[in-house]
């Protein structure tokens, strides 16, 4: 188990380096000037030239290496050990200046939001998305497993068809429709909840339900299939013959094994849910990560594009690792 964790953690920086290279190559080719306001005046040519030089946007390779240097923490280490950081801090102090901000993994400035650094943007948005995504996953698990089990008890019964139908609706209905409908019913018509809805614990309920529905539907179908298969197997028949109560058969024996496919689905699902959904965040006005995935690309905000992609990739690796660990923990037979 420890070997697995160590192996994955060694792989992580390599994966990130490859993803960084691919993302930058693609993002670099987005047409347009990231330093230009899309609706407004065009800045003077000398201004554009100066800004491009400042952000190293005039040369791909110069950008590539300087970003890698800053984001990997190499520059931080070099400055620390060469004494350059200390010298700079001292110089700033003697000049009466504020000490320079030092970040280990410096993901750079945002080109669109010039007062913000990508690190700050992610630090403010990621916890929001994670809380929302985690709540959605928990809701999805409860709803999905309940619906899946209910359907599997009597396959092709009315309950089964009904839950399947609801699941299908959950998968097919776009979240912006569900979200807008929930908003219209609860805050606007009934006066429960509010918009912008972030800050109070209850504010998370409506967006989390909206976000959870597609996941719940998928989990319901996985659970149902797994349960039907398990309920027909020999050990269940044995348990029933021994007179084990039906709830114990369902939840203690069958579900334990039927849950494994759900668990492997949870890795990517959690990474996806916790890095934010553009639509849900936009409709419910939630300050999460999802908006940055879309807006950063539209604005060609290179630093932010790479920043959010790297975070997403890390989360994906991390959650898959957690799922693998859980897998072994639940089912020691897997090696």
């Amino acid at each position, binding site marked *: 188990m420890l070997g697995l964790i160590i192996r994955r953690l060694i792989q992580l920086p390599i994966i990130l380096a490859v993803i960084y290279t691919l993302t930058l190559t693609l993002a670099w080719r987005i047409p347009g000037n990231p330093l230009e306001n899309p609706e407004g005046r065009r800045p003077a040519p*000398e201004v554009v030239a100066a800004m491009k030089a400042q952000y190293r946007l005039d040369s791909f390779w110069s950008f590539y290496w300087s970003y890698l240097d800053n984001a990997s923490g190499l520059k931080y280490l070099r400055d620390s050990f060469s004494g350059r950081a200390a010298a700079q801090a001292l110089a700033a102090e003697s000049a009466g200046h504020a000490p320079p901000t030092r970040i280990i993994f410096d993901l750079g400035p945002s080109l669109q939001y010039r007062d913000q650094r990508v690190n700050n943007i992610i630090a403010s948005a990621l916890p929001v998305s994670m809380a929302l995504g985690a709540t959605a996953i928990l809701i999805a698990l409860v709803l999905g497993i309940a619906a899946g089990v209910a359907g599997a008890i009597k396959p092709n019964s009315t309950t089964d068809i009904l839950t399947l139908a609801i699941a299908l609706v959950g998968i097919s209905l776009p979240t912006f429709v569900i979200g807008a409908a929930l908003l219209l019913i609860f805050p606007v018509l009934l006066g429960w909840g509010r918009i*912008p809805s972030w800050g109070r614990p209850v504010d998370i309920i409506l967006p989390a339900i909206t976000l959870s529905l597609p996941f719940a539907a998928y989990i319901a179908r996985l659970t149902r299939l797994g349960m039907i298969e398990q309920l027909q197997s020999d050990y269940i028949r044995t348990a029933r013959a021994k007179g084990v109560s039906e709830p114990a058969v369902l939840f203690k024996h069958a579900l334990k094994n039927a849950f494994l496919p759900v668990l492997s689905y949870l890795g990517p699902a959690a990474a996806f849910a916790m890095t934010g959904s553009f639509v849900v965040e936009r409709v419910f*006005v939630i300050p999460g990560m999802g908006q940055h995935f879309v807006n950063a690309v539209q604005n060609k905000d290179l630093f932010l594009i790479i920043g959010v992609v790297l975070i997403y990739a890390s989360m994906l690796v991390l959650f898959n690792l957690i799922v693998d660990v859980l897998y072994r923990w639940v089912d020691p037979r897997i090696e």
Partner: protein
Amino acid sequence: MLRLLIPFALLAAAIIAILGADRPLPRADFTFINRGDVTTLDFQQMSWQQDNRVARIIAEGLVAADVFSHDYTIVPAAAERWEVSPDLRTYTFHLRDAKWSNGAPVKPGDFLYAWMRGLLPDVGADYIGFIQHIKGGRAFTDWRSAALADFARKHAESPDPAAADDLWCETKRKFSELVSARATDDRTIVIELERPTPYFLDIVGFVSFFPLCESVVSRYESLDPASGRIKWNQDWTKPPNFITNGPFKVESWKFKRDLRLRRNPYYWNQSAIGVDTMSIPTVEDPVSSVMAFETGAVDWVSDVLAPFRTEMVAQKSDFYKEHKAEYDALNAQGLDPIEIDRRLPPDPRKNIHVFPAFGTYFWNFNCSRTLPDGRINPLADPRVRRALALAVDKHAIADGIRRVGEHVAPTLIPPHSISNYQSPKGLGFNPDEARRLLAEAGYPDGKGFITLDLLITKDGGHELIAQTLAKDWQRILGINTTISVQEVKVFRERLKNKNYMISRASWFGDYGDPTTFLETCRTDDGNNDRAYSSPKFDALLDRAANESDPAARFRILEEAERLLVEEDLPLLPIFYYVNMYLFDANKVTGISSHPRGIQLLYHVDMFNDGKGSNAPLALPPLKPGTHDEPSP
């Protein structure tokens, strides 16, 4: 099975911890939705309206526009009075005894420091041209650009902190040597201009000219020893570091969530302030913005873009019809539309407000001699462009598609938006004349004419308008068209490279003078996307720039605009924009109907909250018969 619950219990605990750590702030006295989150609070770098709007609450330039007067009179702000030399070239501003939000006095040096910053190519101000109205401004920028290039050549390989320091000291010296903006004592600033600029007072009130507290902001400077460039650590615009001289100060800034402002106790004019706290939550979805207003979470939505806004406008005119007698009586008194709404019976339908804006929606014609693919460009012939313009039924677009009370535009500059400026008549809808002109240009009934391509961006409803144009041109002139939809970045690139035939466009004026529109059609202007080049037009602009009599100057500019919209038609004006606001006039006052969307939001006052004077603010009544835009 139970052990499986442990990780999920941990997850639930983590959620509760995150949510618990994120306490919402109490409701502010006044909450409004800006167009989007502010992109920067660095006054010199600002160019978006939402940024400018916040800047005008937290800071103050030398002068300001009185948004509750019909001609937006320039009134004292940080300067208590000023003198202008007879040749309109020298402005002397006398600062009032004002303080920064940290209690320090506002000095002339704070203004000069900000203007020097704005002129640096390192800062990259979009509105650098505004500050370059000051004599020597451009020379200073050019000097600095050259000096930086020189520095980079010498030190790119061998970074030298001492040399970077020297360059910065030299730059500050050069600024006082080259730029004709000087502090003559500790309350007086004298500015000499490059040329007489009748609208300079309007420009000097723009956010690019807002001062910075030099003693604080200079602490965030840092020099790059390899390039010699100066950078300001971004922390300087974050509270509590951010020191401003306006009626409010920034209390907290949660990026993409909420910007909180609090009354600045050191501001000189406390009696003008109507509330103690303001909150600007970030709501980017247009439907959610309206819902936030409907649920009472916000008091003002500054830009109503929800798809159902046409219905909102229609409902308001139903409301007016139901109260026709009262409305007509109030209107006959020449009252401000907001004041009329305030006096009519309470009704949620009246909360939408539509005001004419200082902006125009139009289409660009590419006037280059050849098309990007090398073919001869028929649009280079002004007769063809005029024919196309005459063959468009603009009413079908404004009243059939837009439906928010916008007026069709025969001209580029919205008429009546600049006092004493007489707009030309422009061209109307005239199919016969259009056909005649096209035949004269050698394409009778569109024979031999190329297929035109209309370039648009995805969102914003341009597709319907493009289809209307295509239909009119096909029906009246026999010209076929295609429509190309592009992402906005690609769109902008293609316009810049003149790689298009016809494209949608818009322009909003920055200051109350015709040149803010007309300069965009000058040969080789950075915003002349049309490749339009007319020596006659350029000569008119030059003549106007050197004309010192304001009335004569306007006659020249009127002739220049006439040339654009009646003869040459490098662009096809369709309609004038409106500003659409959502607020309850019976609950809040202080929101202005300024066409450039300028708001001095410290005037905002909630009625019956015990704070501020609670007196309604409105434009003074017009005399009956004076022009005013009709309500939707």
